[in-house]
């Protein structure tokens, strides 16, 4: 199988779906003439024309609202928010409107839309080019939220998201775009939304993560494996709906749970995972549910040492695993 980067996988997924279904189109700032600031839509304007690779004015609320309206007419828009940090002007349409359309019309209308959002830090983006925004959308019934970590997952899940009839927030960690490469089959495949993936099986501790952090968890698992700690690494992949079963199954086996994410600790996705397990696997637990997350500061700062201090990394994860294993 050929090795691809995450950004290549993302681009291919859209390309294939746009070729398959002419109702699919991309829209957003710089997606047309420039092919996207991360080149996710490179060549789309040439192949599909202006109408399906639509450069919009600089106005996120309208990007989302117009995508929504087009979806009402039966199209399948893929609006892009250039950076997660700029999603806020659009959330009246996304959280306020899109998420409630199906429920609020008693099922008469639905919103087949995928909102692509490059997010995350570790790239010297400072306070306004690094934000994690997943928790806000995970708290919003009516939305689905996907955050893949690998090219394989990114492609298979993005294709499924495009075919899904609900509004899907598709979060692409910017640092994984070119850094993470992996095998991607030539032949077409889809991956199910809502299914976590056990990326490494193990018996002693379960670590639950997603996105960039998943890779640090895998590395840390290898580090502590050498010390005799056998870690099971669960990649959530879909953050909403959460795959409760896979997480609970794993904890029933290992009895110990570490949750790792880059997003701020308080009220993050990890809180929900912890709450689920503290309810549904309570009797199996043999140690405190531990979270290793971004601290509660407004995103990672610009200067290198400050950014490094914010970010969880392999060593920090390994340390948390050791502590939990020793409990």
């Amino acid at each position, binding site marked *: 199988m050929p090795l691809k980067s995450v950004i290549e996988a993302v681009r291919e997924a859209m390309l294939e779906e746009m070729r398959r279904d002419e109702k699919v189109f991309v829209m957003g700032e710089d997606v047309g003439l420039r092919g996207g600031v991360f080149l996710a839509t490179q060549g789309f304007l040439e192949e599909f024309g202006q109408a399906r690779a639509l450069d919009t004015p600089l106005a996120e609320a309208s990007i989302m609202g117009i995508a929504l309206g087009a979806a009402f007419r039966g199209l399948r828009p893929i609006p892009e928010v250039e950076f997660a940090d700029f999603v806020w002007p659009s959330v009246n349409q996304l959280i306020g409107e899109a998420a409630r359309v199906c429920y609020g019309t008693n099922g*008469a209308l639905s*919103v087949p839309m995928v909102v692509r959002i490059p997010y995350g830090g570790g790239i010297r983006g400072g306070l306004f080019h690094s934000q994690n925004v997943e928790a806000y959308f995970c708290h919003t019934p009516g939305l689905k939220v996907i955050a893949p970590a690998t090219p394989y997952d990114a492609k298979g899940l993005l294709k499924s998201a495009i075919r899904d009839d609900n509004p899907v927030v598709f979060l692409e960690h910017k640092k994984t775009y070119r850094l993470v490469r992996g095998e991607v089959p030539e032949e077409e495949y889809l991956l199910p939304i809502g299914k976590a993936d056990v990326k490494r099986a193990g018996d002693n501790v379960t670590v639950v993560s997603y996105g960039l952090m998943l890779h640090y968890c895998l590395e840390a698992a290898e580090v502590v494996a050498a010390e005799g700690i056998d870690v099971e690494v669960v990649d959530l992949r879909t953050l909403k709906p959460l795959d409760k079963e896979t997480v609970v199954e794993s904890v029933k086996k290992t009895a110990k749970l570490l949750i790792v994410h880059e997003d701020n600790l308080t009220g993050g996705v990890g809180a929900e995972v912890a709450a689920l397990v503290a309810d549904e696997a309570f009797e199996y637990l043999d140690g405190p549910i531990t979270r290793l997350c971004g601290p509660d500061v407004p995103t990672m700062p610009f200067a290198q040492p400050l950014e490094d201090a914010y970010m969880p990394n392999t060593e920090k994860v390994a340390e948390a695993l050791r502590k939990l294993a020793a409990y």
Partner: protein
Amino acid sequence: MTQAKPRSPKTSRKGKATGKSTGENRAVGFPEGLTEQDLLNSYRQMVLVRKTDERVWMMNRQGKVPIAASCQGHEAAQLGSLLAAQQDGDCFLFPYYRDLAIKMMVGLSPTQVMLSFMGKVGEPYSGARQFPLQGADLEHRVIQISNVVGAGLTQAVGYALGCRMLGDDTVVLAYLGDGATSQGETHEAMNFAGVHRLPVVFVCENNRYAISVPQSLQMAITDVASRAEGYGFPGVVVDGMDLVQSYQATREGIKHARSQGPVFLEMKVERLMPHTTDDDDRRYRGDDEVEQARLRDPLVTFPAYLKEQGILTDQEAEEINAEAQRAVNEATDVAEAASPPDASDMLSHVYAP
């Protein structure tokens, strides 16, 4: 259409308040495409809407309808524009919460309307999950997802974009209030529509109030229609108390939209009632203001005009009234007897299958 100059509507504020409609603003002879029958029918609709509106308000006072926004004073603008849209035959509507006349007259029965206000089974927009007549009535080509002011406008523009992509000939009518013009999303919707010359008619029902906030605290200009130029398309001021003028402006607007791109119609209207059943407008405007406005009530001036024109007799007017009253009574009885939705519905349709 592009050459249409904004006309300042003659309102009773500006003219002298004689207490008598002179019909001086009205079209002479018959406007394009309109028959006597159309006008009579519009009058019939207007009466039915008014009776419904009044009944709903009354039922709120009885504790049977939790909330309602009255369209009293807006009927001519709404029904005039709807008439144009229906004659066109290929329009799609994004009304707002005050557009009872539109939502009803696209084809809902008085009973459906009453079921909606009371939140009963048979509610046509949302299965009674939402405020009355909010959600979607796709059968009649109407969408209003929410009552968040301004939120429907980018959606309307997106709908028009979708229509163009699929090769439809549809024109989208997007309704908003004067207060809604201040929202950032309204600006973004108009800008996008202008850039892509989309077939959208923006219909602004300017009643000079956003709840209690008067126009002077909402904008620094007299005619918000003048903003359209800044988006590269025409804006027109219309006397929205006049059904014929509202019809004509919308008809021209639809033609323009289809051939050249967006138009903004500013319908100057009066809000004859408080903002909603929850509001008490005596806190922020004098009784005399509303009394003055009532002189221009389309339910007064339109039948007077029809009579002047020899289209309506006193007796016909009586009959129309009685018929409407019967329909509303009947609808009320049916709706009162209807069941509310079953509690188990609460969990369904969060996601499409």
